[in-house]
């Protein structure tokens, strides 16, 4: 033989190393058929979530496992939704590694709807589709539905918006502090800007945290935000963008905001320092304010309707649960997703952890409707956010809303901090949007 034993051993060692590296690949592909589904068979379901979706904190997993002793639920939570989405995308691309249920945020649901609808179970094709649809606000159901009627996710919470204000700072500025009177101060954004100017004249301080607070909330009050009816991005032509930009760029130019970048360190610090007196408040922002200010902030804040809300309300945030269609436990996962997003559970999620429902049935329940928030001076949050949720329009959303919104809020910051001309800043935002959309 040409090869000695030793040389064969050498090649063997090299080969073993190759196999070791190659072994990382492979995946098994055994999706269960609906026909074979045994609801009582032992099953472990994984739920991919991000941030604080609080199914665990509200005790919903435990309750489900008690109701269904054969089911074990494991949650894989990622702190940041952006990081979560990146890994979800790579898993969708690879077609493996997906959890039995994947949470989908409003910021990227449109991308999933447009590009990955087939990777998820279509709830509109289920036998109980009508019942499921009736659980949700039509705009919420619509956000997870494709052009040809596939619905790839069931709504969890939602983010109807109001305007939070500091009673103590309003008093110092000689403004009313009662929430009804404050609401009457700003029926429109123009009226709000007048209040902001007055506040600046009397106190010398800005009334609002950031121009983004105006832009991000008013842009969804129009008929269209960043997209046309078909979900194609049209930031330059959109009437909603034009209107929101008008209000926000005035505020930025006149120094009516503290020009803080939202969710940055300085913004966080500014809550406690009273650097601003109002902030656009989606339902989930209450918890954020509470966590930033702690007990010191109790009773300082109150909640009034968002400017312009008599014509149209606005939604910021909220999520969905989707079931990947190729999973091993699709049927069991569908049952769990339907249960977690049912009105009864949305009520629990609200009473336990303050996530506002995306279901009108849940929002009308006395436990939600009559809820007050003591931290926010006993404001009737159920009523305020319930009314806002009713008034939300079904504004078309698109795959690049997050990026386009960031382009505009960044340009607004540029006006406020560097004195850039608003028209020039608008063109910069359009260029940055095109960069995000194109390619």
């Amino acid at each position, binding site marked *: 033989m040409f090869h000695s034993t030793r040389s064969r051993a050498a090649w063997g060692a090299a080969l073993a190393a190759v196999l070791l590296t190659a072994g990382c690949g492979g995946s098994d592909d055994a999706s269960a058929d609906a026909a074979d589904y045994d609801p009582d068979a032992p099953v472990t379901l994984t739920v991919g979530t991000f941030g604080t979706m609080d199914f665990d904190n509200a005790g919903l997993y435990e309750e489900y496992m008690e109701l269904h002793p054969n089911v074990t639920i494991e949650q894989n939570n990622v702190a940041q939704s952006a990081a979560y989405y990146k890994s979800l*995308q790579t898993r969708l691309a690879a077609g493996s590694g997906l959890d039995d249920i994947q949470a989908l945020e409003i910021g990227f649901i449109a991308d999933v709807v447009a590009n990955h609808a087939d990777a998820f179970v279509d709830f509109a094709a289920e036998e109980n589709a009508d019942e499921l649809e009736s659980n949700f606000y039509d705009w919420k159901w619509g956000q997870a539905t494709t052009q040809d009627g596939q619905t790839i996710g069931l709504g969890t919470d939602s983010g109807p918006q109001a305007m939070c204000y500091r009673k103590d700072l309003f008093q110092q500025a000689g403004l009313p502090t009662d929430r009804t009177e404050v609401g009457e101060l700003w029926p429109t954004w123009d009226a709000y800007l007048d209040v902001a100017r007055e506040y600046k004249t009397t106190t010398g301080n800005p009334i609002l945290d950031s121009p983004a607070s105006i832009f991000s909330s008013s842009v969804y009050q129009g008929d269209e935000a960043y997209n046309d009816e078909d979900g194609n991005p049209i930031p330059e032509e959109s009437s909603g963008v034009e209107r929101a930009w008008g209000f926000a760029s005035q505020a930025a130019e006149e120094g009516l905001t503290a020009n803080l970048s939202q*969710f940055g360190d300085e913004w966080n610090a500014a809550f406690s320092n009273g650097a601003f007196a109002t902030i656009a408040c989606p339902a989930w922002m209450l918890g954020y304010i509470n966590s930033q200010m702690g007990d010191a902030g109790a009773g300082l804040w109150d909640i009034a309707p968002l400017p312009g809300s008599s014509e149209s309300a606005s939604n910021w945030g909220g999520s969905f649960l989707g079931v990947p269609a190729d999973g091993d436990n699709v049927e069991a996962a569908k049952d769990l997703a339907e249960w977690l997003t049912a009105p009864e559970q949305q009520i629990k999620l609200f009473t336990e952890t303050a996530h506002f429902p995306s279901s009108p049935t849940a929002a009308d329940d006395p436990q939600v409707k009559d809820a007050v928030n003591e931290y926010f001076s006993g404001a009737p949050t159920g009523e305020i956010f319930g009314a806002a949720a009713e008034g939300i329009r079904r504004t078309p959303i698109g795959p690049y809303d997050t990026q386009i919104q960031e382009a505009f809020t960044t340009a607004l910051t540029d006006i406020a901090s560097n004195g850039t001309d608003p028209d020039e800043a608008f063109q910069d935002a359009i260029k940055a949007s095109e960069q995000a959309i194109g390619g």
Partner: protein
Amino acid sequence: MTIASQSPRDALIAAPTVVSQLDPDRPPAARRRTKLTRNNWGYAYVAPFFLVFGAFSLYPFLYTAWVSLHRTSLSNIDGGTWVGLENYRNLLQSEFFWNAARNTLTIGILSTVPQLCMALGLAHLLNYKLRGRTFFRTAMLMPYATSIAAATLVFAQLFGRDYGLINTMLEAVGLERIDWESGTWTSQFAIAVIVTWRWTGYNALIYLAAMQSIPGELYEAAEIDGASRWKQFLHVTIPSLRPTILFTVVVSTIGAVQLFGEPLLFAGNGTTSGGSSGQYQTLGLLMYQQGWSNFHIGQAATTAWAMFMIILVIVGVNAVIGRLRARADR
């Protein structure tokens, strides 16, 4: 030197050739067998490295080139459409690219030049017999041992507009507060400070190690000729350090081209635009924005390759300069 080059492994690999040369009477097949066998073991030993290198360096490298020729998204990398060199054409016409390239260059100069000069000075000082020398040498390396993220987050707070320590101090001595993050030069200066803080000690230690291998006779001779300490530094230390300086310049330049973590975290809110007008967006950050904020992975791959090309050119220029200097000295 002689001991170092004759490591056992080298000896093992060199042995068969020596044996075969010394033993011309052995039949050719047997000779070849010995050689092959021995060499095969060599391959087996180095195989793990090359497999890992292949899987995690070479393959991604080539795959990136392939992806850069497609229009494709992060969630559908293999399903893109072939566009040839269009991504490269778009990149060269993109004002975002040129802005990022300009920022990378200016931040690179602002951080690399002071960093290396200070490192040289520090190394020179630490080369003297000082009390507590070991402490200073260790302390100097501490920033390098700190994670980029932790350091940047702390610096971003120090440079904060409203509640930053630096502005508080400026105000205390009667100067105006500075909005560090929103200005072009101020933000680039702040980022350069972070980079300089982190890498000065590391480079100083490299210089120090090189300085210690300069023979003491050179200094003695210079001293006899009446050269001052400064003259000694200029005419003995610097020329002897030339290869080391070239090495640190090359390494720092590569680091500067790849600068990413500092500008990303300096923004403080996770945005990838590098400031309100992209005033501190570097090429690394642009690549991240294209690939992981906008999900255009083809564009990101193109930017990655452009960065690679830029590094190749810079390293090439450095090598040529080094060689020309060496030839001129001879």
